[in-house]
């Protein structure tokens, strides 16, 4: 029973492991840029999950052509299209905050920044 779930739904376990990797990068590493890279890995793995559940067996890209064709589900594509550009905007704002923090404290390590804030 468990083996059957693993064999037919193996994709989901790969997506979940990518999510867990990104999550570890966000909370387990103390460099700010490494945290932002972990956040981006997490975001892209969620997009992968959405696009993969939109696929239909034997379907083709969702552009109308003449004849009887099966199309894949276009709705997750729409969600993820805007989400990609918003993700890069979020990364840009996060990186600009990191630049300002570096100019202020001289370090990008989270523990040293907290130490610096405590001593202020």
């Amino acid at each position, binding site marked *: 029973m468990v083996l059957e779930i693993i064999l037919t739904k193996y*994709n989901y376990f790969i997506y979940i492991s990518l999510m867990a990797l990104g999550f570890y990068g966000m909370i387990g590493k103390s*460099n700010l840029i490494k945290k932002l890279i972990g956040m981006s890995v997490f975001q892209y793995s969620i997009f992968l999950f959405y696009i993969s559940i939109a696929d239909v067996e034997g379907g083709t890209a969702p552009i*109308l052509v003449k004849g009887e064709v099966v199309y894949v589900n276009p709705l997750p594509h729409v969600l993820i299209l805007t989400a990609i550009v918003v993700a890069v905007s979020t990364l840009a704002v996060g990186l600009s905050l990191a630049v300002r923090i570096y100019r202020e404290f001289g370090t990008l390590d989270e523990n040293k920044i907290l130490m610096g804030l405590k001593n202020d």
Partner: protein
Amino acid sequence: MILAVDILLLGVAILLAVKAIHTKDLVESTVLFAGYSFVLAVIWFELNSVDVSFTEAAVGAGVSTILLVAVIALSLRYEEEEERSMVRNYLAAIACITFFIVLALGVQDLPIIGDPNAPHHQHVVPRYIENTYEETGVVNIVTAILANYRGYDTLGEVTVIFTAGISVILLLRRVWQ
């Protein structure tokens, strides 16, 4: 959805993600992250989503890599040494494993990928696919949904992007004076 190609690409994506998070050199991490996003763009092309695939290729290999390299050039290249104990790493690993287990328990209710009778293909989407050409005159269903059926949400998204640009100007341009 060719099985062998799928598993190969997903395996490469996991290896790139593991190495990108683990390494201490930030430039190596950035290049591996660009590779990861490009492998994801190829996977999405194989899953028949053409619009999303080339947006991701342009964004992942173009814009976000340049921004990360620019920030590394303005600050440090290597991660600093950890002088704290390893307790924090173990706690983070326990949290991630708990996250993995909780989500894996939820997988048994999800539909098999590619099943045409899954519930998310049934309710709203057939109406969109059938009525797109008569109601909007456009052949690309993704563009029709984005700009016509769900146009109000897209207006909000464009405003979010504009606001992000303004935020970066506010944060970084004061430094120029």
